[in-house]
């Protein structure tokens, strides 16, 4: 009954694009302000990092990634990352073999811990990276997550 702890409220505001069912689908796409399209539409991790304006990432023990060794299903995989590097301004999550590897990018505002958890989709077994940005440098930690077939199949 944790549900009750939640507060409901706040107005749902529908964007201007809605109700425009007559428009071709592409016309509905209107990327959110500040969304780094080039990075999120990159097909490789290297391209995504370039699009973020950073130098190629280096591995660091100060970036900690928590990810399951085996995912029973690829639709939901819980990833969490912590950066112990001073001056970390962003934390990112990358699934190398996804069609678009960059999954999520969190800013670290002053007073917020450089520590985030998020659920991501994985199309297949892949390396997963946690990225931490310090200045224009990126540091990473990597883990393989095996995505398995489950259940009766079909």
């Amino acid at each position, binding site marked *: 009954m944790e*549900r009750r702890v939640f507060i409901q409220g706040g107005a749902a505001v529908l964007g201007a694009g809605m109700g425009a069912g007559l428009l071709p689908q592409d016309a509905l796409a209107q990327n959110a302000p500040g969304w780094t399209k080039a990075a999120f539409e990159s097909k490789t991790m290297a391209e995504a990092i370039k699009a973020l304006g950073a130098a190629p990432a280096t591995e660091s023990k100060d970036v900690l990634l928590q990810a399951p060794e085996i995912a029973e299903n690829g*639709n939901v995989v*819980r990833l969490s990352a912590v950066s112990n590097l001073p001056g970390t301004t962003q934390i990112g999550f990358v699934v190398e073999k996804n069609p678009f590897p960059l999954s999520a990018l969190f800013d670290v505002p002053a007073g917020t811990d450089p520590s985030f958890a998020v659920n991501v989709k994985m199309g297949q077994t892949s390396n997963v990276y946690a990225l931490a940005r310090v200045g224009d440098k990126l540091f990473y930690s990597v883990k393989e997550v*095996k995505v398995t*077939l489950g*259940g*009766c199949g079909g």
Partner: protein
Amino acid sequence: MKPEPVIAAVKWAWLALLFVACGVVAQTKSSADAIADYRASLQDGNPADLNAARGEQLWKTPRGPKNATLQACDMGLGPGKVTGAVAVLPRYFADTGRVMDVESRLVYCMVTLQGFRTEDFSAATVFSGEGQKASAVEDIVAYLYDESRDAVINIPQQHPLEKQAYARGRQIFYYKGGTHDFSCASCHGEDGRRIRLQDLPNLTKQKPAQEAFSQWPAYRVSQGALRTMQWRLYDCFRQQRFPELQYLSPASVDLITFLGVNANGGKMAAPAIKR
């Protein structure tokens, strides 16, 4: 009977077998641990909470041709009493003269109180498809179970129809049919069995039956949706290669009764989150 041909049991062959067997055990154990970690990681943040929140609104909002709420619905503990109600269903209801499971009773209330038609409720309309919003029944079911967390399962066996439902449910459980000769018992009648990496509860035993019964409905991450107990049976029979199980059918209520009685004494923990 033709026994399997036996090869000469030379020492190296046994050693090889032993080696392979040990490898298998080690592999399975670490996979099982890893899967347990995966499941544990999902427990915080179950999207079924979103269903339960919507379900609570649906329960309390006037709907249907009669523009009524469900707050007068008697799930078995009296009108409007929902806390703990799902833990004692299926049971016999005098007003309908039959044994009803949670979903049968909810639909009965939606029909009698709100004026929906019985034929509006079928597998096609109740079980949401990929990319579709959850149905009202799915959301309300999530709410009802959420209100009964930690309630002790106590499915009654007093009324003759309750006893018949259990006995028939048991026979259906063992009933092999279809192209693959499967029965429920093919997968759920023995201890320690898995399909792929998923443990198959032995539903004839109390503890595994309690675990299974207490954790449905559940948010299925593989489906991206909340799934009800009726759906669980429906999709088991699909994979069993049977024809299509009708929503709220007598066989479904019989089976849920069989499972529920086997699970008596357990504690409700639904909606859960599963693969």
